[in-house]
């Protein structure tokens, strides 16, 4: 079944009234002016004038699998945090479609610049999930090799990475490569000057970078109205490149839109801004308490737009997946959770002297001196211990 939707990525004036009219569906829709959607919250497949997608059942099952495994990984991380194995966790619950859809749109030679919440994107880049946990456990600040999967380290200072992505994309263009770069950031981040400067540089140098804003409607306790009074995708036009808003809980639409945006970038047309309109179902991080600032009903409303449930409905309606498939994914999930659990528990603490490592690539006399002094200081305890045990021996 396929229903026409004409929602376009243009300014709201254009699409208003033509998009997902409220009366059509029984439940409230994610529908908003200019929101690209290919799969409704009810799991109905709809067409879009500008963004088409044609996936095989296997590909659809693949997206489903990605989302389920990502969610399971996320849930396991929350549990591990509760058990004290992690110091903190930033859950992506609810944002699986935005992340899997966009991540799966990238090619291996594309380059990803994430925030601290892109566990699903990491998954699509074949980054070992254990790598993501080191910083949350407190054994490192990231530590993986970004060039192994073209997936940069998580960035905590809000917005910074959009400039790195832009510079990287300038380099890609200089090299004459046809790859693209994708920079993730949040609705809150859209207020940072760095993000605006990234827009400026990307436009001026026509850099092949896609700015991917996951608007999960919250920046910790602040709703998006505290960042902007118009939809964020509209910002792009003022910098001279296209912006589009996509239903971030619709993995098909996100995949289609991000593919198009990356292709736009790769083909020399410069940057593009994608706003994936989604929802942060959980707390900001495990230390956050959303009951202090948001209504339960809002969360419930968005639960009905769950990205995984809607793809499942579609798979089932179309008969694209059978019981074996679901059972297989369950088993895979359990195995993943187990691997993660064990992997985290066995993750070694860094040795004390790691404090002094990797401060500089070319070394520094100062670090050498402090390292030596600290080693001597530590040795003095051992000497003392040895001395006193030696003393005991007397």
């Amino acid at each position, binding site marked *: 079944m396929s229903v026409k939707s004409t929602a376009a990525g243009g300014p709201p004036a254009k699409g208003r009234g033509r998009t997902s009219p409220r009366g059509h569906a029984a439940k409230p829709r994610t529908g908003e002016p200019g929101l690209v959607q290919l799969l409704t919250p009810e799991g109905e497949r709809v067409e879009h004038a500008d963004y088409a997608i044609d996936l095989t059942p296997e590909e659809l099952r693949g997206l489903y699998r990605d989302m389920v495994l990502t969610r399971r990984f996320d849930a396991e991380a929350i549990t591990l945090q509760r058990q004290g194995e992690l*110091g903190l966790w930033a859950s992506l619950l609810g944002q699986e479609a935005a992340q899997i859809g966009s991540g799966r749109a990238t090619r291996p030679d594309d380059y990803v610049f994430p925030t601290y919440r892109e566990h699903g994107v990491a998954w699509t880049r074949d980054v070992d999930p254990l790598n993501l946990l080191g910083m949350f456990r407190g054994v490192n600040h990231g530590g993986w090799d970004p060039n192994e999967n073209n997936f940069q380290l998580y960035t905590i200072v809000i917005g910074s990475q959009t400039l790195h992505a832009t510079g990287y994309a300038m380099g890609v263009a200089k090299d004459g490569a046809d790859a693209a770069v994708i920079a993730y950031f949040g609705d809150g981040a859209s207020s940072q000057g760095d993000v605006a400067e990234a827009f400026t540089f990307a436009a001026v140098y026509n850099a092949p970078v896609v700015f991917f804003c996951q608007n999960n409607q919250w920046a910790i306790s602040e709703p998006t109205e505290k960042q902007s009074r118009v939809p964020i995708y509209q910002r792009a036009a003022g910098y001279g490149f296209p912006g589009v808003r996509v239903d971030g809980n619709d993995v098909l639409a996100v995949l289609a839109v991000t593919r198009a945006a990356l292709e736009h970038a790769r083909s020399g047309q410069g940057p593009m801004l994608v706003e994936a309109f989604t929802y942060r179902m959980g707390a900001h991080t495990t230390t956050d308490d959303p009951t202090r600032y948001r209504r339960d009903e809002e969360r419930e409303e968005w639960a009905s737009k769950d990205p995984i449930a809607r793809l499942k409905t579609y798979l089932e309606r179309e008969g694209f997946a059978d019981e074996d498939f679901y059972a297989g994914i369950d088993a895979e999930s359990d195995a993943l959770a187990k691997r993660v659990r064990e992997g985290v528990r066995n993750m070694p603490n860094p040795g004390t002297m790691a404090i002094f490592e990797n401060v500089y690539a070319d070394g520094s006399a100062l670090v050498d001196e*402090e390292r030596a002094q600290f080693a001597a200081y530590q040795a003095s*305890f051992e000497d003392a211990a040895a001395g006193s045990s030696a003393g005991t021996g007397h």
Partner: protein
Amino acid sequence: MTQTMAVAKALNESLRKALENDPKVLIMGEDVGKLGGVFRITDGLHKDFGEGRVIDTPLAESGIVGTAIGLALRGYRPVVEIQFDGFVFPAYDQIVTQLAKMHARALGKIKLPVVIRIPYGGGIGAVEHHSESPEALFAHIPGLKVVSPSNPSDAYWMLQQAIECDDPVIFFEPKRRYWDKGEVDVSALPGDLHRAVVAQQGTDITLAAYGPMVKVCLEAAAAAANEGRSLEVVDLRSLSPIDFDTIQASVERTGRLVVVHEAPVFYGAGAEIAARITERCFYHLEAPVLRVGGFHAPYPPARLEEEYLPGLDRVLDAVDRALAF
């Protein structure tokens, strides 16, 4: 009117009092509204004073400080919260080139009574950028005042005084002491915001510290007392200006000084104190001023911070070394 409260509560009460006393006082920052800030320092203030006084801002630190400057120019007294130490840098330009200099630029004709509260320091098991001690980067800047309380009473009073001050004040809050309790006499008349105090009297050596490290030094003094050593502890309270007179007086009695802070030693506050006290007390010092602090390395991941942060042992080791001179 003495009450027992934690540092966090003392700060909260102090903000409440400032909001009550002066309608021009505003609170601004990320998540300071309904949430009450990630450390709950502004808890309840949004509810009681409304969003006109307690303002959730867009996520942009330069914007927060820059608009706070504008509000100050209009006659308001903004108290800005920076969520964590590592996030003050996007605002650094506004702080250094504007906030610190506008009074001088106007030859004194305008005032910039802006307080910037920064929870700082480590010891809470956090991820990157959440445990730093950037105070020297502000104290080096003429036009800014920089202070840091170490206990609930100072938290309460020093914040009042910072808000009343007509100059920009960078107010560093020792975040790992937020939950430490102590007595606060909310009716006592406070002393000078920039005066250091002798937190523990002693005769053999002086320890100078501020913020989170005062407690460590007091513990060191207690431990040393058991070994028959008498450590004097000076709580600096202010990092710009620094009350060198109080340190000098102490060092003239003890003849030795160890400065302790979490921030990297290299170009840290300890350097300034060592240099100036050596100049003032050259003939009194029986040992060079020693410094205990962070290493010249990024603040390490949480599992290493206990070793990175100066603790009792490292302080006492420095005491031993100073006494061995």
